């Protein structure tokens, strides 16, 4: 049960306790397992064990044709499925040098940003829940429900959308959908303030998140963190700005960055991202151009031989696809995903050393990992 490690030299010998957190644990957000070595309640070291949700999506994709893979990508980051679709389709389009119509790129932008809000809603809810504020959880899920309704209207599904096609979209937006999206933006803007009222200036929230899991910019970059955890450390890195895809080059938005690199700053960054996402959605919905929704896509999708890497900014961070085509078969020769959650989770061990058990759940929450994406 225990592996006692005895510190000699101290006046009192103390045993280290090995605490196994997960894979069945309410706040490891799925099937994450963290083996903690504790000195009292202080974490001396941690081993992060993953793979409990490994379904071999990469291997599976190498045996499916190019279109079938889209629905496999839904199953990775299942709280932001449309973002995965977009990333994959754009990578294949890059391989085939396909031109995507402007209207499709605008709709992709709207869907990506709606997904970002949905994902952040889930994050703010569970993160607050982990720290004990249960009301925010239900508030955030209430708003996420509105987004799911929008998606249901758009593509008929509420979680796994399969909402993209290589070269464009499967369906045009339903009539009146853009009005509903704008309406949602109005509602959401007030709801963000509601979350902030409950958390941002709450003394207990501040005590629980300020100075917890501090990581500075260079260290975060070296650890491969991306997305809000990286921006929380003050590194202005956002794929949407740096390597624009979809219609982000035509959008106006700011990239919020933190200063302290602690859990609180990551929280603030994500809350500001809510607002920026709404800004992008408004611009894209109001400026949605007329035109076709699918480009000139050959009947049989068979990209030329070669390999490419393409990254987009998913709600969790840099979501990259590395795809190799052999130019002969109708399936990719190598399909590799660079899952942002996987790389962010790698930083957990560094972040939690020296903190208390209660901070472990706060930090898992602040990294915002989805185990479906970590394990694939």
């Amino acid at each position: 049960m225990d592996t006692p490690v005895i510190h000699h030299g101290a006046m009192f010998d103390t045993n280290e306790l090995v605490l196994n957190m997960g894979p069945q644990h309410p706040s490891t957000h799925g099937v994450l397992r963290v083996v903690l070595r504790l000195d009292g309640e202080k974490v001396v070291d941690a081993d992060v064990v993953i793979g409990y949700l490994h379904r071999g999506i990469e291997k599976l994709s190498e045996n499916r044709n190019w279109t079938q893979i889209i629905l496999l990508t839904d199953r990775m980051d299942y709280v932001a499925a449309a973002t995965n679709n977009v990333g994959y389709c754009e990578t294949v389009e890059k391989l085939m040098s396909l031109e995507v119509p402007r209207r499709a790129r605008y709709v992709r932008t709207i869907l990506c940003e709606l997904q970002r809000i949905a994902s952040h809603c889930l994050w703010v809810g569970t993160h607050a829940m982990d720290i004990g504020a249960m009301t925010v959880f239900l508030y955030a899920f209430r708003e996420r429900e509105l987004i799911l309704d929008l998606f249901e209207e758009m593509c008929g599904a509420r979680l796994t959308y399969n909402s993209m096609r290589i070269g464009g979209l499967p369906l045009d937006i339903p009539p009146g959908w853009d009005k509903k999206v704008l309406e949602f933006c109005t509602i959401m803007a007030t709801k963000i303030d509601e979350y902030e009222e409950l958390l941002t200036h709450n003394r207990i929230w501040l005590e629980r998140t300020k100075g917890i899991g501090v990581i500075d910019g260079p260290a975060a970059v070296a650890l491969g963190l991306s997305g809000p955890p990286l921006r929380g450390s003050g590194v202005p890195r956002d794929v949407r700005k740096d390597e624009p895809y979809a219609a982000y080059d035509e959008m106006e938005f700011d990239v919020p960055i933190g200063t302290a690199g602690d859990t609180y700053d990551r929280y603030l960054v994500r809350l500001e991202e809510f607002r920026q996402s709404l800004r992008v959605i408004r611009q894209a919905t109001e400026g949605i151009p007329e035109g076709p929704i699918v480009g000139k896509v050959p009947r049989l999708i068979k990209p030329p031989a070669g390999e490419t890497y393409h990254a987009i900014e998913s709600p969790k961070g840099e979501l990259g696809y590395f795809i190799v085509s052999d130019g002969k078969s109708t399936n990719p020769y190598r399909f590799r995903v660079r899952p942002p959650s996987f790389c962010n989770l790698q930083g957990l061990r560094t972040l939690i050393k020296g903190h208390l058990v209660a901070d472990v759940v706060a930090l898992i929450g602040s990294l915002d990992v989805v185990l479906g994406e970590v394990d694939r």
Partner: protein
Amino acid sequence: MADAPAHVPKAAAPTGPPDPPPPADVTAPAFIATLHAAVPGGVTHVSYWLGDWTLVVPAALILQVAQHLRDAADAAFDFCSDVTATDWPPRAEGRFDVVYCLYSTRHRHRVRLKVILGEQQPLASVTGVWPAAGWLEREVYDMFGVGFTGHPDRRRILMPEDWQGHPQRKDYPLEGPGELLLENPIEWLKLRQSREQADIE
């Protein structure tokens, strides 16, 4: 995987990506020239396709190249996006392509490094250069069986500790180790034990 249904290779298995050299009208970024100067023989081939630069690096020099690319002012690749591999079983010069996708948060440019590696050939770990490579290299080891030397924590990451074989290799069957495990676990256990016995002998 003697009992598993043998993977039937396609008529002509592909032997690697074309990696076309840059066309005449594209100028290579400056850091490639600097790299050539700093690490002689560090780059054996430069390729440009779809706007991405790929440098093929000999396995022996990967650490030096990585170090240079991270520290050189005109390169500054401080962010290791991805480490992965591709399996090209019939290729003569080596079975695996180990691919490093690098990004610079300062210059906002990307580059891919590629190391061609034989099946039993070890490769120096770049975790000392980019700590981010830690888990990514573990995954490459887990999925392809590439042995990284100098890795601080070389364990399997996604598959169970006692898993046999490396699933992402092209000769690993999609069905996994066979149906025996699901249909008759006791038989499977016996088989595994006998195999372990054979390993020991």
